[in-house]
């Protein structure tokens, strides 16, 4: 048994999710787009305002909690997912969302992240990946690309970054999507899909920090280059990219290969996107695609159905209730060896 989220009856507007707090991000920060989209999605999703809880950690991104007129916790650095897990388990009837940064989620919060996806608890996790620590003014994060000059790597980052999708799927994620911050349409659809997905949904937003990593996702997301450098996945459809959709992917053993349509290779050999494929190596291979060899995959890479952890917890509770001799604490306390003093 899992309590169902109660649908709302009034129609909401995105303004209904605005708070009276001044939004304190740098002008032009990608966070604004995520905020706006989130307000729209929350208004449209069909959940009553009071049944949302938005949990964040600490970072520029995590400030979003103050700007969404729902219940919210601005917790501590790295602990958004852990805190949100407590909320969801306490009241599985809530729609629980997590807003977190690449540092918050993948550095200090890494353990909670991998365990959430392993358990498949029904949280919608949005990672604002600007590949830097914004709030603390520009130190390397675990997603900072090699060579990037940061305050803690003045000579350039020499650590290998995490590929969030790969880590998530490797640790068992049932839902993973990657979305450019400016593609609010894709973001909106993805957030709806994440909401519908029962289990942990991970959305990596390629978010631009105008101060410390301005343009870091530009190659992937800019108008001029995105046709070549980004492949937008769509379930059931053949994977295509390039200015004229002239490229696709074929298999070479278990490796992906970029090929041109209409040349020597038969059309059937080109891969279709199947986000529901249970086996993960295909989705991992998609998540791993990197410039310059491959375009970067966006959209929903993986969505497979599996029972959520919160549902399992409540199933276990129901099952236990059914077979127990204890219906109240008195039953329990009086069980076993007792004696009376008169």
């Amino acid at each position, binding site marked *: 048994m899992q309590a169902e989220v109660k649908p709302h009856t009034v129609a909401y507007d995105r303004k209904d999710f605005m708070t009276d707090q001044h939004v304190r991000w740098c002008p032009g920060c990608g966070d604004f787009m995520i905020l706006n989209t989130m307000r729209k999605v929350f208004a449209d999703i069909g959940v009553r*305002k009071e049944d949302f809880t938005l949990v964040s950690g600490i970072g520029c991104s995590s400030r979003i909690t103050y700007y969404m007129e729902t219940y919210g916790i601005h917790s*501590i650095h790295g602990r958004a997912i*852990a805190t949100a897990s407590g909320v969801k388990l306490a009241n599985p009837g809530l729609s629980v969302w997590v807003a977190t940064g690449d540092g918050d989620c993948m550095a200090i919060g890494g353990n909670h992240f991998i365990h959430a996806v392993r358990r498949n608890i029904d949280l919608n996790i949005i990672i604002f990946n600007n590949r830097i620590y914004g709030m603390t003014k520009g130190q390397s994060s675990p997603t900072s690309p090699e060579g990037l000059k940061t305050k803690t790597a003045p000579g350039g980052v020499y650590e290998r970054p995490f590929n969030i999708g790969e880590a998530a799927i490797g640790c068992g994620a049932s839902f993973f999507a990657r979305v450019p911050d400016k593609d609010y349409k894709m973001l909106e659809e993805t957030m709806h899909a994440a909401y519908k997905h029962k289990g942990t949904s991970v959305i990596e937003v390629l978010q631009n920090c105008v101060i410390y990593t301005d343009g870091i996702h530009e190659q992937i997301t800019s108008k001029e280059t995105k046709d070549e450098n980004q492949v937008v996945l769509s379930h059931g459809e053949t994977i295509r990219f390039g200015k004229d959709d002239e490229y696709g992917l074929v298999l070479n053993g278990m490796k992906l290969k970029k090929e041109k349509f209409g040349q020597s290779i038969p059309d059937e050999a080109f891969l279709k996107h199947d986000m529901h494929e249970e086996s993960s190596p295909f989705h991992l291979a998609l998540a791993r695609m990197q410039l310059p060899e491959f375009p970067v995959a966006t959209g929903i890479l993986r969505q497979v159905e599996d029972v959520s952890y919160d549902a399992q917890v409540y199933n276990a509770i129901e099952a236990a*209730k059914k077979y127990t001799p204890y219906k109240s*604490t008195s039953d329990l306390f009086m069980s076993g060896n007792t004696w009376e003093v*008169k």
Partner: protein
Amino acid sequence: MAEPTISTPVNKVVVRFSGDSGDGMQLTGSLFSQSSGLAGNDLTTVPDFPAEIRAPQGTISGVSSYQVQFGGTEIYTPGDKTDLLVAMNPAALAANLKFLKPGAMIIVDADEFNRKNLKKAEYENNPLEDDTLSDFRVIKAPIAFMTKEALKDMGLDTKTIMRCRNMFALGLVYHLFSRPLESTVAYFEKKFAKKPEIAKANSKALQAGYSFAESTEINALSMHIPPARLRKGMYRNIDGNTAVAWGCLAAAEKTGKTLSLCSYPITPASEILHELSARKDLGVVVFQAEDEIAAVCASIGAAFAGNLSLTTTSGPGASLKSEAMGLAVIAELPLVMVNVQRAGPSTGLPTKTEQADLFQALYGRHGEAPLIVLAASTPDDCFEFAYEACKLAMEHSTPVILLTDSYLSSGNSPWRITPPQELPDINIPEYKGAPEDWQPYQREAEYLARFWKYPGQARFEHRIGGLEKKENSGNLTYEPLNHELMVKLREEKIARVAKKLPKQNVYGPDSGKLLIVCWGSTYGSAKTAFTELLEEGHDSMGFTHFNYIKPLPENTGELFSRFDELLVCEQNNGQFAAYLQTQYPGLKIRNYNKIQGQPFFVDEIKQKIRETLEESEYAG
């Protein structure tokens, strides 16, 4: 050989069952405790088992013991030393000689004193045959042989038969204290319902032991311990960890709240998690988190979501939780953290007891982060203080730390099963106005508690977090004076809890030279020591014991002022004494500290009090 010192009737007796880890001594002991409870005695027990999961069989490091003190009077400790030792093998004898009173009785399984076992126990000669035991009264019972005899017709394999030796021994001891066998037999029948031959074998061995005693010299020794005058009601034995779990269950039931436990295993706190994991049947939501930080953060989430929220741990875990406890303080959410203390620092002596996490509970967070600190004193009052912790957390919208310890968690004492209607009411401050007028950091006037509103409640949507908040509105602000105000408000909120607390009591004379002070689990030994000294005629001293640590009860200062000096007994290097100095500057305090991973003995405290009284006599 000395004469037995156990005279008939006596008022209290200490019995210690000891054998190899595989000999079932914990079960034997706990059945004996049950029977003592049924006989109307008060009692306290303590187990003593190897740190290793499975230590080498037959060796001293593999010895597992169970000690119980029971009597016709109030019993606060499992006893310093033993009147009767049951030793199932040479190692058990070797390991326990130091725990015996002079003249104590020893029952051994003489059949186990063979060459092999003696060697494992590092005995060169058989102690049953030299003068090792000349100070004691030794009963050499052929337990193995007699058990085999008793069960020989049942068609059981030797291993199964030998597993019943403990019940033979228990039968012997039952006879000694004139205990009926019925309830134990009934227990076997229930426990081994699916293996009736095992039930029968155990019953038979028990019976055989009883009969054996009847027909031997033990018969002459049997004695009667009168029942204690305990408060009327239903009783059961309970250990501190179960009592904590149950106290929280009771508070959840009382308030109609769901209990959430978010925890991570750690010795000696794990059993609370185990018990509540098994209490899904009562609707408990248990989350075994990936680590302690996840556990405490999830509990904060659960508290925000409106559940009665609990997190349990021991020292190392408490350290890990300190950052998040600060969040709970500034968020002003109800949350109970139980720290079942063990000996530190660091990993320390993980199976040993200590009270050295008090400083951490009081001060172990960055910034000014006050919260309520309670400490339980006996295995059974762990129930009461867990309930109280839940009550205060919800009534005052604050995290509460409840300190228990390894000694309480593993000890047993009879618990009067509190009927639900006797449990104190829990009055969670209720907001009565319109949602528009409600503000997240608005406070109830008397105690300054916040009103708890949570997801699912329409029109109370709000955000909380770790940044400093504007008074009332809870909006973020860097205003200097607001910060100062909020720091003071948070402190004052905790201070005001004192108004609600029971007055601190003095036992014995309520003024005089010396006040014996202790807190938490030192209660048992200190109270016993004090009572005995009082009976011995020392009348210039009082005794007071603290369960409410922060805030202290309102009359504490006044109470202290009635005595010339304090003797603070605690199992650490003087933490409570130091805390008292900060609360009542200028107190004249003597410290009595024991930091040996084990509780005070009654005699140690008596000795110390005597010395102190003499010294101050001399000084005065």
